[in-house]
């Protein structure tokens, strides 16, 4: 009849009491279990989505703030440009893995043909486009697009620091474009840099001036992103194809090449227009869009905080996680709700189990006194009751683990659906290179999954058993510290 056997008898001989305790723990356990499940799931969503969104960030005008400005405010506003120095300064922050800033322009050519592909319904994309080649200026020699897997270098090499610095006339083009024009690494090709004048009356463009630029092919790339998706997403395939053709016709060159061409355009314009000439005297006409890749998704927030004060007025950091914040509404409300439920459930559990155990113990007080009067060690008396309570609690917790999980799944399903209808519209969303924007609230909800993982299970048992342990031990210690006479006589 040792204390373990007594504990066993304590449970089985007082079935009613054990069942009441079980029921209380089970009900409260469902609350805690459900709340933890939702918490965990929302936490997981945030990390997986942010992981998927990547670590890209850029700095640009805050168009939302701009739009909300009044006429007067706009008149007095003096927009500052984002200088290369500032771009570099931000790039030196410890959160940044690598960064680049580039200029982009479009050019035509008389000597090479753009890569084309027939679309369904016999629509030819790129047809009659006289500037089909998109030139992308590079400052980061290894080319971020290749590092991030948008493209892959198939032949040749990337830029050298020297070439970037000096603006050497070298280019990396797509393999398909090269094949189309029988170009190989080491060959040169010519693009036509033309200055257009757009007449508002006729809507016609006339070429004011043009010049050739000759580039040497140093490397060939192969587009990578979205390759696998083409087949599965039928409806998007046209869209994808267009993007693909755009990318196939992209020519990577050092920034300085584009900068020189821009300069040339402005000079041509300035010949006709003294106002532009004046402007050219005063400021540089180089506009760069920086792109920063951070070390990991958690860095986005501190990065934004550190960058914000450095920026000129009306500029803001735009990152992938902004998007998450835009669409995570349903998730956030789930998360806060579950936080409160968890807090309330834990407090309620401590109080209610404390109370139930206290009643349970009041009933057992005399029995405990008897054990003490027979010389049983206090530790074993405490141990016996703890075993009884913990065994019952364990069963209750295990049951509620599963039902709470099911419940959490149900509750969050309905909540998400309810919230889903209030989804914001995405009109006016600006798309940035490297910052994926195809994420919808649907995706967020899809990646939300209430599941039993080990950390959740352990966490739940931990919280549950600890709560019950504490609410049992406190009154128990109070009882066994009394001398047996006080209890029995």
């Amino acid at each position: 009849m040792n204390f373990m056997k007594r504990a066993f008898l304590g449970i089985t001989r007082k079935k009613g009491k054990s069942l009441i305790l079980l029921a209380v723990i089970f009900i409260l356990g469902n609350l805690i279990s459900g709340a933890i499940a939702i918490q965990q799931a929302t936490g997981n969503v945030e990390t997986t989505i942010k992981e998927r969104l990547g670590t890209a960030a850029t700095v640009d005008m805050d168009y939302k703030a701009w739009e909300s400005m009044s006429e007067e405010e706009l008149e007095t506003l003096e927009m500052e440009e984002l200088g290369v120095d500032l771009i570099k300064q931000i790039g030196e922050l410890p959160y940044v893995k690598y960064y680049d800033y580039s200029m982009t322009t479009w050019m035509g050519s008389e000597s090479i043909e753009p890569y084309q592909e027939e679309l369904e319904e016999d629509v030819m994309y790129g047809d009659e486009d006289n500037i089909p080649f998109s030139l992308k200026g590079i400052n980061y020699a290894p080319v971020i697009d290749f590092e991030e897997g948008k493209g892959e270098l198939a032949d040749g090499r990337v830029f050298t620091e020297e070439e970037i610095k000096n603006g050497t006339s070298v280019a990396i083009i797509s393999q398909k474009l090269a094949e189309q024009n029988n170009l190989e690494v080491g060959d040169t090709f010519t693009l036509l840099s033309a200055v257009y004048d757009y007449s508002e009356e006729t809507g016609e463009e006339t070429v004011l001036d043009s010049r050739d630029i000759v580039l040497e092919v140093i490397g060939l790339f192969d587009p990578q992103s979205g390759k696998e998706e083409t087949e599965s997403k039928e409806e998007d395939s046209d869209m994808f194809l267009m993007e693909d053709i755009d990318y196939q016709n992209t020519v990577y060159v050092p920034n300085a090449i584009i900068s020189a061409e821009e300069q040339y355009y402005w000079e041509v314009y300035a010949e006709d227009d003294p106002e532009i000439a004046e402007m050219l005297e005063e400021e540089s006409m180089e506009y760069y869009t920086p792109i920063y890749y951070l070390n990991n998704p958690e860095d986005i927030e501190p990065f934004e905080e550190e960058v914000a004060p450095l920026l000129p007025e009306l500029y803001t950091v735009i990152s992938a996680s902004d998007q998450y914040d835009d669409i995570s509404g349903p998730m956030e409300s789930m998360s806060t709700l579950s936080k409160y439920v968890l807090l309330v459930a834990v407090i309620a559990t401590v109080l209610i189990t404390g109370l139930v155990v206290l009643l349970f113990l009041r009933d057992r007080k005399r029995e405990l006194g008897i054990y003490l009067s027979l010389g049983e060690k206090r530790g074993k008396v405490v141990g016996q009751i703890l075993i009884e309570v913990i065994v019952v609690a364990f069963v209750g917790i295990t049951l509620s683990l599963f039902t709470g999980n099911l419940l959490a799944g149900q509750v969050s399903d309905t909540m998400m659906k309810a919230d889903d209808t209030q989804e914001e519209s995405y009109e006016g969303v600006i798309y940035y290179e490297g910052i994926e924007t195809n994420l919808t609230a649907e995706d967020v909800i899809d990646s939300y999954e209430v599941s039993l993982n080990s950390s959740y299970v352990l966490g739940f048992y931990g919280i549950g058993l600890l709560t019950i342990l504490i609410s049992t031990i406190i009154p128990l210690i109070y009882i066994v510290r009394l001398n047996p006479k006080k209890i029995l006589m």
Partner: protein
Amino acid sequence: MILEAKDLNYYYQDGEQRRYILKDTSISFEKGKFYTILGQSGSGKTTLLSLLSALDSPHSGEVLFNEENIKKIGYEKYRRNNVGIIFQSYNLIPTFTAIENVLVPMSITENEIPDDTKTVAYNLLDYIGIVKNKADRLVNQLSGGEQQRVAIARALATNVELILADEPTGNLDEEMEQEIIDIFKKLMSMGNVSLW
């Protein structure tokens, strides 16, 4: 001397005042004898017994068991190995059967007792008049006299030299009282000392 009390003081605090129940009380008991303490209700019999059985501690003075201070032995250990206590109100565990109640102290004591505790417990109960089928009943399904016998059996089960009983017949009718007294007399011949 198997048991000695020296200068025991025990009081209740009554406001500012101390109301002494025991004041400089000394008493000693020889081994193998049967003692009865008489006194009016409220005179402090239960109080003295609780001090002698280490269920409570005196404000001053000491209790010696075989010349050793029970405080030194350790109250818990003393209760576990040296004394069997019988209460006026039985104090059995109601959810256990008679035999289970007797087995409880047998699993707690460190005294030498036969390995086959169950048989010993049945024999013990049988000896004081609880037959096997009653021994397997929950104690709250037994009469007062039967419950008191179970309590006696429980006190005897650990093979102690000293039994302390607090009005063990107080709740019983005369006939039952006589039977219980007879049991104690019978036990006396086995060499235990009992205080009543």
